[in-house]
């Protein structure tokens, strides 16, 4: 909830998640080690004169998948590099399933599973036990997924895993902790207009998906007031059940012994959920408008523009990835043109951002001084038009593909990356080799493909444009963008509790 504030002030939240979800972890990855290559020359060479040996084949760490009788799926990956163990339960749940008059219920439930105590242990007792041994358990429910994770020194595995199992299976949602959490949520509502970037993100999402869409709606004082402890218990009981959980464990343990331990701790948990959740429908709410949030105190305009996007399992996902690389990064068109050549912005981007199971966004933007707002928007739109209208050069294609292919190994630098990917793919119903399909898709992408996907998926005339900035300074220039459309004001004042 306060992630924004914490991000502003301190990169690692300490209080809520002392080691912020060391989901999965470390390990002996079974990659054939590269033999040191003899230096080709004893004199310094320009980069163009260097040649490089190939990297070894990627080898995946050994993982074991078991399914308990109650339906819980468990992945185990041993990693003995350090005396650490960690794990993460992925729970089929999400705030997109909460009732419209109780927005905030899922997030509160996610938080209170951890902070509200259990049948046998008070919240304070849990905190004291964990922190004394530098261990952590954290739980949360986000838009499309719930997560419960832990991290411990391997010598404390039994203690922490026992607590973790207790927290997940027997939360009691202590009323005073719920009051505290609700008050914290009220505080974050009150602070949600303090950062112009947050305003732009939130309001553009609402414009595109619709203000009441589960993918855009926000917690309000009134929806918080509707939420009772009973609601949390019901939401938990309806959704958190072993048959809706994929548990991943990684670290310094013996697989057989750990499997036994998991059966001991989770095997007796009876499945309770019995209904399928239908994903909410997504339709574009706003197309092709210009909007402004008036902030007379700002010397910069925070610009975001976008339209509805797509899914990762689209056959064109890899080609769109290549397109993203042509537009972004060092040597990317937007960075080169809008930032370096024109000096219009520190941040500028335009990216196809797909999701696993609901349409993502095509989104572009950045910040620029108030007087150059229209120039900035024009410059970005020009690049969107250009990648549709003209074929990219062979050098651009090569650079864009190489960026992903030559850095591909970094997707396998730690065993926990492989583990969390396997779990994510299973959760969203993707094939387990999806990442390699993506790699092959990148390899096969042609110049014509990039232009085709740009023309198919990017529709500049549909872009909804949002500016957070000083309307008096910005409006005249915004109106020059399109004489037929004037910028519509958006009121972001926070509704009082009813």
């Amino acid at each position: 909830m306060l992630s924004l504030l914490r991000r502003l002030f301190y990169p690692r939240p300490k209080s809520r998640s002392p080691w912020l979800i060391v989901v999965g972890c470390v390990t002996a990855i079974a990659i054939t080690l590269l033999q040191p290559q003899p230096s080709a020359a004893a004199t310094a060479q320009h980069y163009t004169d260097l040649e490089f040996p190939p990297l070894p084949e990627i080898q995946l760490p050994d993982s074991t998948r078991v399914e308990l009788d109650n339906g819980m799926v468990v992945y185990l990956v041993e990693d003995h590099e350090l005396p650490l163990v960690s794990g993460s339960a992925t729970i089929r749940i999400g705030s997109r399933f909460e009732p419209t008059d109780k927005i905030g219920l899922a997030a509160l439930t996610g938080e209170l599973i951890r902070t509200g105590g259990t049948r046998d242990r008070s919240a304070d007792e849990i905190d004291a036990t964990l922190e004394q041994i530098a261990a952590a358990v954290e739980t949360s429910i986000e838009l499309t997924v719930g997560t419960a994770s832990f991290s411990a020194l391997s010598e404390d595995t039994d203690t922490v895993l026992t607590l973790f199992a207790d927290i997940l299976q027997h939360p009691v949602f202590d009323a005073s902790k719920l009051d505290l959490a609700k008050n914290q949520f009220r505080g974050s509502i009150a602070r949600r207009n303090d950062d112009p970037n947050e305003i732009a993100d939130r309001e553009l999402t609402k414009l595109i998906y619709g203000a009441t869409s589960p993918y855009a709606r926000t917690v309000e004082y009134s929806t918080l007031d509707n939420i009772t402890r009973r609601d949390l218990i019901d939401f938990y009981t309806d959704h958190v059940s072993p048959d809706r959980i994929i548990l991943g464990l990684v670290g310094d343990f013996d697989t057989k012994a750990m499997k036994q331990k998991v059966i001991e701790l989770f095997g007796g948990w009876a499945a309770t959920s019995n209904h399928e959740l239908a994903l909410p429908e997504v339709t574009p709410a706003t197309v092709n408008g210009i909007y402004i949030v008036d902030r007379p105190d700002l010397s910069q305009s925070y610009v975001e523009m976008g339209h509805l996007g797509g899914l990762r399992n689209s056959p064109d996902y890899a080609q769109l990835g290549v397109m993203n690389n042509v537009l972004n990064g060092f040597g990317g068109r937007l960075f080169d043109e809008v930032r370096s050549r024109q000096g219009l912005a520190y941040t500028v981007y335009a990216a196809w951002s797909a999701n696993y199971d609901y349409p993502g966004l095509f989104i572009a933007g950045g910040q620029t001084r108030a007087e150059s707002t229209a120039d900035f928007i024009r410059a970005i739109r020009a690049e969107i038009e250009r990648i549709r209208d003209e074929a990219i050069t062979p050098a651009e294609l090569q650079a864009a593909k190489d960026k992903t292919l030559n850095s591909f190994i970094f997707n396998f630098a730690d065993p926990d990356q492989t583990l969390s990917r396997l779990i994510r793919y299973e959760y969203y119903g993707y094939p387990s080799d999806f990442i390699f399909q993506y790699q092959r898709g990148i390899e096969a992408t042609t110049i014509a493909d990039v232009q085709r996907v740009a023309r198919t998926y990017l529709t500049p005339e549909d872009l909804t444009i949002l500016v957070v900035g000083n309307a008096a300074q910005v409006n005249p220039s915004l109106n020059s963008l399109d004489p037929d459309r004037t910028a519509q004001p958006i009121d972001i004042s926070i509704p009082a509790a009813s």
Partner: protein
Amino acid sequence: MRSVNFWGVWSRGLADGWWRVVCITLMLGVLAVGGGLVLPSAALADRLPIQSYIDRTIANVTDFTLENGMRFIVLERHESPTVSFITYANVGGVDEPPGKTGIAHFLEHLAFKGTTRIGTTDYAAEQPLLDRLDELHREIKRKQAAGAAIDPDALAALKAEFEQVETAANSYAIQNEFGQIVQQAGGVGLNATTSADATRYFYSFPSNKLELWMSLESERFLDPVFREFYKEQQVILEERRLRTDNSPIGATIEAFLATAFTTHPYRHPTIGFAADIEGLSRDEVQAFFETYYVPNNLTVAIVGDVNPKQVRRLAKTYFGRYPAGPTPPPVTQVEPEQTAERSIEVRMQSEPWYIEGYHRPSLNHPDNATYDAIASILSNGRTSRLYSALVQGQQVALYAEGFNGFPGDRYPNLMLFYGLTAPGHSVDEVQAALHEEIQRIASEPVSEIELDRAKTQARASLLRSLNSNSGMASSLVNYQAKTGDWRNLFEQLKAIDAVTAADILRVARATFTDQNRTIARLLPLDAAANP
């Protein structure tokens, strides 16, 4: 330290994530506890099973210094065929002359602009245009300074010529070619940060590209060309607007530092004042570069799948090309002891924040570990005193904590506390609750349980950091540059194990006094909105 970095955007890869990185951070070191001088007592740490893992890591570290004084630290880790690099230039905001704030950070941006061979299609043709641009810029400044006496047509003509020459010069530039080469070769995490203490350049490569890093990084500082200077100036001004002018907390921190420090350059913003950024010229940045980017002021850490012997050979070949230079001038300003509480108020469109800082000695002071223990006991986790009292107990704050090393730790710095008011509570209530806890730690010994917890957490935190190439590169180079020996990254555990309740009482009592305190209150524009 307040860090500002080169770019706010990264392109979206396969990994989950967002494509904007907002880096307004007050960063601590990589660990929850900082380092310090080594104390003799080492009993607890040596008994612990994790010590063998730390010893194993230490055994895999080698270091060497080239004849020109440039220092390298290498940690072998063969868990994956990847390697992380960091070049640490021992120069930051503190080294900037008055009126030239922001020059270290400006230089950091320009270090992405290429060399005589990278970033240009024809340097011989480009160079005279770059020089001419500087002349025109000086001429325009002179005329503008003359004010009303100047003929407006002459000024307009100069500006027109400036734009024309800039366009001509840009026609030779290959934008961001340096970064493009790195990324196309499979480099990830390419970025740089400038803080009050240091400038750090970093990225990671697949391990078959070790020599490519050697070639690119050595050429980068051997032969840099600060092209596109005037456009980059605009970019940096946008960065300043983003981080400071339009950021309530950024603006508050700038005003707070200018109040807490009266003499030491920690009082200046690393991003620079807008007028200073606008006033910088290319030859000033060049001169700053020549003074501070000498090999004996540079330290490199390389962590990952490498052969240390090969690293050494290549380093000599590539970085041995740097001519040795004189040791850069030290920072001479010494912050005088504070004699009375100072306080400022900033009003912006924001909910309230309460901030206060206390002067403390540098990283290398023997009490450093004690300060770390104090920060840990006050701030680390839900059982910490500030969270228990301010957030859970009295519920006056949404969040509150204190940490060391602000805005840097090479020099005497601040222990900084802050709290965000909870709904219906004021900054005065946050202050009162905070002072109650600070008074308590300065008047009663902490419990053994709390002290043990802080020590265990410090050990676990170091242990957890050992499996990250980039994290270890950053920590090793930081301790080498700031304490003179990378081993202090590990020795600090012994120092923290030696901290006693009496040490904490002594240090807290000396530090947490009214006269040693500077306060900032960030309040909404509309006073009525603050209950």
